[in-house]
């Protein structure tokens, strides 16, 4: 009786790329829930549009590249990219923003470089940065948290607006939008105000703010709502570390370096530099640390390398947020460190067993 005789090992762990990607998406849920709570249904509509776009683009290119469609479509990586892009977009972005961003990420940043595993840059961040540079107005038309808005939209209204740009009677788009806390802080600091003044003006309770006709977008530590979203991503991220889907190195290094450098400048000049907690719980810091910088394909691979890589992202984020032209900078920081990943891998190898250092 002849047998098929492949080589060892004959036993494999019950793991797969699909499983890894699905766990990551699962870990995003607390953050997404907070997002919906504070900023309405826009993000859910965006996620739906993004996922459909991502799967269509992925399938199309796989077909053109004559690669098996089903295994790659079901690996979950395109879905994850889509969800991450959707999470970075303003909740009321028109549909074509999402479609262009996701299509660019999947087709250009991922598939044209060879598909899963071969892209040097994080596709979601490439898509986001392309949108930010090409459509600055749409990408900065954020909305205030629900509790502060004059009027908020239900799911149907949100979907109608995103798809057809139609609003219910009596609501104008301008009335809906508001700059993000990071954006406002940057603008006001540039105007010569101190952090405390900005916070005093924009961190009032609802009653006082109505009198002054400003919206109090600053919360206890970060932006209102944003601190909860950040907390949600932190929770999901810690769970990913606990289940060993990601290692602690990159998130700890990134948040640690961001904390360290923002603390340093805050201690030097608290009037003109935001608090470290503000930096950690605003913008995409938490999302970036646990879900974007940890993308294994584009990150450094050794543990020491991961620490360097994470520190780099934290530092670049602070530098660009503080002195650069953009209010948030996680995407740029990630892309900059993506470029460095191969170099880091080259110089930070572990010492092999039995080889004296």
């Amino acid at each position, binding site marked *: 009786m002849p047998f098929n005789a492949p080589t060892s090992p004959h036993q494999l*762990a019950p793991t*797969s790329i699909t499983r890894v990607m699905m766990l990551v998406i699962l870990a995003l849920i607390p953050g997404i829930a907070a997002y919906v709570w504070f900023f309405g249904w826009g993000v859910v509509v965006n996620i739906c549009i993004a996922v459909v776009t991502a799967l269509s683009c992925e399938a199309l290119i796989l077909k053109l590249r004559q690669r098996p469609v089903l295994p790659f479509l079901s690996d979950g990586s395109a879905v994850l990219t889509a969800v991450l892009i959707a999470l970075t977009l303003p909740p009321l972005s028109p549909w074509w923003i999402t479609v262009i961003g996701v299509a660019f990420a999947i087709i250009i940043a991922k598939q044209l470089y060879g598909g899963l595993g071969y892209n040097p840059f994080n596709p979601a961040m490439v898509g986001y940065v392309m949108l930010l540079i090409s459509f600055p107005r749409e990408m900065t038309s954020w909305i205030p948290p629900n509790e502060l808005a004059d009027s908020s939209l239900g799911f149907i209204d949100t979907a109608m607006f995103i798809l057809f740009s139609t609003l219910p009677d009596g609501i104008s788009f301008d009335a809906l939008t508001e700059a993000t806390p990071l954006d406002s802080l940057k603008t006001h600091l540039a105007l010569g105000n101190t952090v405390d003044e900005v916070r005093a003006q924009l961190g009032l309770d609802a009653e006082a703010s109505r009198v002054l006709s400003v919206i109090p977008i600053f919360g206890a530590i970060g932006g209102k709502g944003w601190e909860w979203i950040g907390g949600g991503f932190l929770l999901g991220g810690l769970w990913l570390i606990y289940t060993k889907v990601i*290692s602690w190195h990159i998130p700890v290094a990134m948040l640690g370096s961001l904390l360290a450098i923002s603390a340093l400048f805050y201690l030097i000049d608290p009037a003109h530099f935001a608090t470290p907690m503000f930096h950690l719980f605003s913008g995409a810091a938490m999302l970036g640390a646990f879900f974007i910088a940890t993308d294994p394909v584009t990150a450094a691979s050794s543990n020491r390398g991961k620490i360097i890589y994470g520190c780099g992202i934290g530092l670049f984020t602070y530098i660009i947020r503080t002195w650069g032209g953009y209010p948030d900078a996680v995407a740029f920081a990630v892309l900059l460190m993506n470029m460095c990943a191969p170099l880091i891998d080259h110089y930070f190898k572990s010492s092999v067993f039995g080889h004296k250092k």
Partner: protein
Amino acid sequence: MSMAPVKLWDFHGGIHPEQNKLQSTTEPSALAQLPKKLVLPLHQHIGEAAEPIVEIGDTVLKGQKIANANGYVSAPVHAPTSGKIIDISEHPIPHPSGLSALAIVIEPDGRDAWVEYTPDQDYSEKNPSHLRNIIREAGIVGLGGAGFPSFIKLNPGSQKKIKTLILNGVECEPYITCDDMLMREDAHSIIEGVHIMRHALQAEECVIAIEDNKPEAYESICKAAAGIAGLRVALVPTRYPQGSEKQLVQVITGKEVPSNGLALHIGVVCHNVATAAAIYRAIHLGQPLISRMVTITGQAVKQPRNLEVLIGTPMDELLQQCGAEFDQIERLVMGGPMMGFALHEINLPVIKTTNCIIAATREELGLDRPAMPCIRCGACADVCPVKLLPQQLYWHARAKELDKVQEYDLFDCIECGCCSYVCPSNIPLVQYYRFAKGAIWTQEQEHKKSDQARERHEFRLMRIEREKREREAKRAKKKAPRPKTDTAKPPPVDGAQMADKMRQEAMAQRDSAEAARKTEIQAALARVQAKKKDAAPKTDAPVAANSPTPAAASTQASTPTSDSDSSADTATHKDHEQSQ
């Protein structure tokens, strides 16, 4: 007398695969039935194949030597029962290559009559080298799966003193339970074997290491080892591949065996528990290695268990005895699921290194997952016990960048399979490394061949040159007497011609001097090489052990005409690495 517990150290990486050990330990071990015929391959160990000393038609007794060790790294083969030699020819053997090799076939007569043997219980009076000789003659090889002749590893040689003898009862691979059973049921033989080994090695202390998934074995060994000075039992936390020699040495001593080195170099020697029991039988009872414990398991086996099996018993008879459903068997593996190899046929004989036979079903393997691209997750590097970068090795092996894979220390890879096991993309990483190793060995042989070809070519040019010169010299000699006679008359040549000739002569002289020097150097080199070849298997075991296969070694030594099978090289190298 209580002794300090063994301080345990950590090793990098490792995995916790599903154990699957309970199935085969529910029942005590049993004797395997006497088969209709026994097939005894002459090559069941690392080193040269044994040489038969019987002929077809001879009758032999149980324990009678039927093949002699051939060279230093080799082991003799004995008849596992009394009977008649009915065949000496090529038979399929359990080997990853699936190739056949010379084997002696015995038809048992059913009497099971022993040859006369001499028990020797006063070994402690004996010279260690005398003990090693008995162990060698008993055909004992590492029973943990590696099959390296044991007497060599009981020779401290000119090395500094052996500090620690580690007895490996770790059995870290899933499914395998033969050492577990042996420790439970025959701790006495193991401990007696340890005494002999310690005497032979003059080792200061001995540590018996057992993983904590074998509490019964631990109890049993502790009981047998109680009160013996310098002998400690260590219960180590279960983790694969702890039973690999270098990892175990690190866990017990905290020291890393140097790359390309042996445990011996840091004063440690490792032996398997079953080897210790076999050594006890060889010295105390005078019985050679003719049987061993084998785990028969896998989902296709109805009554998985351990059997005491005569070497040479066909595996299908063992599976039959354990109620195997033959049509359910998807893959037959010898050894564990992590490092064992799949067999091509079902009726192959059990050899000295057969510790486990897994008859796996299709559901059990669940291997139909397609390989996806690497996502650089680094899970492989996290579990690599050698701290390699499996991912980088994979990229370079795939690109056939053979120099790069060596830069990433490919040859430190022990092929434990942890990286393949955890890979979410299901990339058969170990297969890539085996391929790269094979390719490098082939390349090295090609280099050797071309070096030899170049030398031959240079030598030929030199010979032509020399012959030409000799002819010219002869011609010159023939001509020479004439001008000698009329010395008064200078040769009718002008100055330019004269100078030309002188220059030519000077050059020829220099060339011949150089050629002579070259031939001398080459002759010296050849002598050195010849010496090395002779010396290698005799004086320095590690050298021989590291050479890919005996076949490959002899290919290197002789003219480079035959091409050695690279897959076979890889396999044997793996066997060696697997040493427990």
